[in-house]
C-alpha cells in the first residue's frame, strides 16, 4: 500500500515538472502520447515452468520533454507470484539526433523485499538500427546496478519480423536480501518472430527466450532449488497504440 502511495507521489511530482511545458504546448497542440508493449507473452520453460511476462512503456510529452513509464514483470503462473516486477517513471529529453537521456525513479516490487531506485538512463538508436536502452540505478540501500537492453529487427518481409534481443543486468555490489550478486548477474536473450496483423497495433509472435543467471545471483537462485539457466518457448503479441 505504501508502495502504491509512493508511486502516485512520484507520478504527481513528475507531472508537475512537466506541467509548464504542456501548458505552453497546449496552444500548438504538440503533445503526443503512445503506449507500447514490446513483450506481452506466455512462457513455457523446459522444466514445465509457466510464466506470464511483459515489458512495455508509455509516454506523454513534447518533442523536447516526455514523461515515460516503463514497466516489466514476470509472473510465475505455477505459484502465482511475481518473480520480478518493476515500474519506472522518468523524464526524458533528447541530447542528440538519435539519443535521449532520462532520469527518474524505479520501484521494484516482486514477491519479497522491495527496492526504490534513483535511475538515469540513455536510450536511442545506435548505428545499424540497434535499439538501445540502458540505465544506471542507485538503490535506497546505496547499491549501484545497471541494465542494458538491445534489440534489432530483421525484416523477413514488411510484415513478418524476426527480432533478436538481449538484456543484461549487472550490479556493482551485492544485495543479498533481494538475491543480487555483484558483477553481471543475469542475461536474457530472445528471438521472436512476429507478424503485423493490424497496422502496428497488434503483432502476434512466437519465439524462444534463454535466461541465465551468473555468479552469486546464480547461487542464490540455485539455493532456492531453481535452475540458473533455462530455455522458454514463448507466445505473445507486440502491442502499440
Amino acid at each position: 500500500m505504501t508502495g502504491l502511495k509512493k508511486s502516485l507521489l512520484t507520478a504527481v511530482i513528475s507531472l508537475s515538472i512537466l506541467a509548464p511545458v504542456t501548458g505552453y504546448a497546449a496552444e500548438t497542440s504538440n503533445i503526443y502520447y503512445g503506449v507500447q508493449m514490446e513483450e506481452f507473452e506466455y512462457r513455457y520453460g523446459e522444466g514445465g515452468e509457466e510464466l506470464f511476462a511483459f515489458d512495455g512503456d508509455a509516454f506523454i510529452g513534447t518533442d523536447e520533454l516526455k514523461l515515460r513509464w516503463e514497466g516489466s514483470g514476470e509472473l510465475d503462473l505455477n505459484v502465482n507470484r511475481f518473480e520480478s516486477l518493476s515500474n519506472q517513471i522518468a523524464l526524458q529529453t533528447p541530447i542528440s539526433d538519435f539519443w535521449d537521456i532520462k532520469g527518474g525513479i524505479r520501484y521494484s516490487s516482486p514477491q519479497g523485499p522491495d527496492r526504490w531506485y534513483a535511475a538515469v538512463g540513455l536510450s536511442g538508436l545506435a548505428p545499424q538500427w540497434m535499439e538501445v536502452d540502458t540505465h544506471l540505478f542507485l538503490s535506497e540501500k546505496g547499491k549501484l546496478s545497471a541494465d542494458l537492453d538491445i534489440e534489432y529487427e530483421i525484416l523477413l518481409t514488411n510484415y513478418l519480423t524476426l527480432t533478436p534481443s538481449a538484456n543484461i543486468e549487472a550490479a556493482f555490489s551485492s544485495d543479498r536480501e533481494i538475491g543480487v550478486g555483484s558483477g553481471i548477474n543475469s542475461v536474457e536473450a530472445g528471438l521472436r518472430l512476429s507478424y503485423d496483423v493490424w497496422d502496428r497495433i497488434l503483432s502476434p509472435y512466437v519465439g524462444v527466450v534463454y535466461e541465465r543467471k551468473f555468479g552469486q545471483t546464480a547461487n542464490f537462485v540455485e539455493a532456492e532449488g531453481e535452475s540458473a539457466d533455462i530455455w522458454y518457448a514463448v507466445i505473445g503479441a507486440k502491442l502499440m497504440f
Partner: protein
Amino acid sequence: MRISFMQKACLGLAMAAGVALLPSLSVAKTYNLTVDKVMIDTGDFQKEGIGYNGKSPGPVLRFQEGEDVTINVTNNLDESTSIHWHGLILPFQMDGVPKISFPGIEPGETFTYKFPIVQSGTYWFHSHSGFQEPDGAYGSIVIEPEKRDPFRFDKDYVVQFTDTHPHSGKRIFRNLKMSADYYNRQQQTLGDFFSDVSKNGFKATVDDRMAWGDMRMMPTDIEDVQGFTPLINGKGPEQNWTGLFEPKERIRLRFINSSAMTYFDVRIPGLQMTVVAADGNNVQPVTVDELRLGVAETYDVIVRPMDDKAYTIFGASMGRTAYARATLAPRQGMVAEIPEMTKAPLLTMADMGMDHGNMEGMDHSNMSGMDHSSMKDMDHSKMKSMDHSNMKGMDHSSMKGMDHSNMMGKEQEKDSFYATGSGLVPTAANGGKFLSYADLKAQKPLYEDRDATREIELRLTGNMERYIWSINGVKYEDADPVILQYGERVRFKFVNETMMTHPMHLHGMWSILDVGAGKWDPIKHTISVAPGTTVYSETEVDAPGQWAFHCHLSFHMDAGMFRKIVVEGGPKSASIDLIGNGGLQ
C-alpha cells in the same frame, strides 16, 4: 461587426489595387459553402471525413477574373475551421490561416470572405486548421480569364488528386511521432538483401546496407505515409472517374494535387500532354509524356484524343505504393488498360546531400550554359575529397541511379532540379519526355525582371527518426517571423538538407521560380525542392500584412516546417490595422 470590417477591408483593398480593378465593370457574386462531416468512400474503405457542401472533395468554385466574390463559409463541425484559397492573390485577412490571417471560424459560425479575383487559372482551396485537410477538406477553383487564354480547348475537366487514408490525420501524426516508419511498408527486407547480393555481390550489398545503417536512414523513405487510396475527383481506382470526349476534341485537364503527402507521376498512355499552365499561370506550351505533380501544385494540360477509344489517366505515387486511375472516354463505361507501375525508386547518397550535385556553383540560373560533359571529370575529383567516413567502402557502381556515364549520356534525362545521381530523377514510363521545372517558361511575365534586393537562405531541415521538421533547424513554434519590406524583391535560397522532397508554399505573393530563363522564369505558388538540391525563387513583396510560408506536406507543416512572414510597410490604405491584428474582431 464582421461584415462592416469586411466592407472596410474591401474598400481598403479596392483603393490599394487602384485602377486595376475597374469597379464599374466588375461583377459581384455570392457563394455559400458549408463545412460538414461527410462519409468518404474510396472503393477500398469508407471513413468519416470533412467536406464542403456535404461532399469531399467539395465543389468546383467557378470564378471570373475581375469579379468580386463573397463567400459565406458556415462551420457545421464541432471544432474551429478555416478555408485557405490556395494560390489566390488577396488581402491577407481573407487568406484563411488561423492565428495569422484571422482567428478562424468557430463551430456554428459563418465567416464571410470577400475579395476581388485578380487572376485566372486553376487553383484549389482547403482548410488550414488542424488535420482537416488530410481528412478531406478541399475543393477546386477554376477562374475564367478576362481575355481568352492563348491556347484552344473544347472542354475542360478538373482532375483533382488526393491521398485518402483510412486513419484520421490526427492519428497519422501521432503514429509518426511514436514511430517515424510506422507507415513505411516498403522497407528493404532480407529478401531484398539476398537479391541485391546476387545482383551486386555480397560486399557491395553489405557496404550499401552499412552506409545507410550508419546514418540510420532508409533508401526507401520516399513516402512517409503509405496505405492511402489515391482518388481522382473523389473516385478510387476501381470507382474510375470518367471524363467524356468526342474524338479530335481538345480537352483541357486541370490537374490539382490536393494530397496531404503524396506526389504523383501522371501520364495518359497513348496521349501526349501539352502543358499550358503551372500553378494557375500560363506557360509556354511544352509537350510531355509524363509529369510529376507535387503536393499542392496544379498543372493544366491539353490532350487531343483522335480515336474513338478510352484512355487511362494514371498517376503512380512517387514512392510507387499506390496509383490513382481515371478514364477519358467517348462513352460512359468504356475503359482502357491500367498500366503497371514502374519500379519504386530508391534514394541514393546523392539524395542525402552527399554528392557533387549539391556543390556550390550548381546555381540553376547558370545551368543552361553549363557543359554537362565536363562534369564527369569534376565529379570524381570532388568525390575523392569528400568525407567518406559515412560511406566507407561504398561501391558507387552498384548503386541504383549512380551510374554517371548513363546519367550524363542522356541529356534529356538530366534534370537540374534533382541532385546528380538522385534516385528520384523521374523518367517517363514510355521512354519519352518527362516534364522538368527547367521546361517551364512564363507565357507572359507578370513582373518586370530585376535583380533581387536581398537573399534569404532557408535550409529545409528535419530529424526523420523523431519526425521533427523545421526550417534552419528551428520549428515554427520556436521561430521568429521572417520580416520582409514592402517593395523589395527577395531571393529565397532553399537548401534541402533532408532526404525528403518538400513542396514549399508561400501565401499571398508569387514565387518566381529561377529556372535560368530570366524574365521568362515561371511564377508559381508552390516550389518543390528535391533532396540534396538548392533551388532559388524570387518574390516581389507586393502584399502587405502577414502570411504563412510552409512545406505543404501536411505532417511536415504540422511538425514545424512553417514560418510566418510579416510584410512591413506598403500602401497606407491597405495596411490599416494590418499588423496589430487586434482590429480584426
